[in-house]
């Protein structure tokens, strides 16, 4: 039995809607990770994205945020000593953040890529069959701990590794869970 997924058009447009959104650029990845955690704790609707090439300064990750809260967000980040290198509105400049996620459907398997890491899931059993990408020292260990486990039973990558690869894999893991939970606009259109 295989799962087949179909993306809903309305969800696609929602994902791509950047009106009233801005981009925060940071010096390095660990600042992005800290800022993401902090701003989510404060209840802001933010997401980690790839910075548009035109404004990339230091790091390959950036944070998309609601412009209406720009001052408050800057204040919070300054208070916690993670001031961004800069921020830019998206809608006025035509700059487009790069989506960190890509999915590729191989029929029986679904690959979810986040930044530099790929996670492949058996759609029938939800078994994690492959982890690849990265080049960080903790990837072999994380892979060993994840491969062969069902997605819902697997430990979270962030609990296993602390590099950019571990972080990217956590994003892929969360995205995969969200997809298989039916929260990403994919539908099981048929069962064989």
């Amino acid at each position: 039995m295989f799962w087949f997924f179909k993306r809903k058009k309305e969800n696609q447009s929602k994902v791509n809607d950047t009106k009233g959104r801005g981009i925060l650029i940071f010096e390095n990845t660990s600042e992005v990770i800290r800022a993401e955690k902090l701003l989510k704790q404060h209840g802001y609707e933010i997401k980690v994205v790839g910075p548009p090439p035109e404004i990339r300064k230091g790091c390959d990750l950036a944070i998309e945020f609601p412009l209406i809260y720009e001052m408050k967000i800057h204040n919070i980040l300054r208070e916690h000593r993670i001031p961004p290198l800069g921020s830019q509105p998206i809608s006025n400049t035509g700059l487009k953040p790069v989506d960190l996620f890509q999915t590729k459907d191989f029929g029986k398997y679904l690959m979810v890529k986040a930044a530099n890491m790929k996670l492949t899931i058996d759609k029938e059993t939800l078994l994690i069959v492959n982890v690849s990408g990265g080049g960080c020292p903790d990837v072999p260990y994380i892979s060993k701990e994840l491969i062969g486990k069902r997605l819902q039973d697997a430990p979270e990558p962030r609990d296993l590794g602390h590099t950019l690869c571990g972080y990217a894999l956590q994003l892929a893991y969360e995205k995969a869970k969200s997809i298989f939970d039916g929260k990403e606009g994919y539908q099981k259109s048929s069962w064989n």
Partner: protein
Amino acid sequence: MANTVDARGLSCPQPVMMTLDAIKKYGTGEIEVMVDTDTSKENVIRLAQSQGWDVVSVDPDGIGYKIKIRK
């Protein structure tokens, strides 16, 4: 005689998916997987072991490897 998976020229995760397909198809016995990168070799070995298969041998084969797994 071992069943063969030729995953040379393919990038991850395809060699792993092909190996898992063979594991599901044959259930037990011996499977020889041909890959041509170190990454594919490591990933195929990890998958096989996670499925309870023994890695019998890993031999250089041209620019790649022949991985023999058994259950």
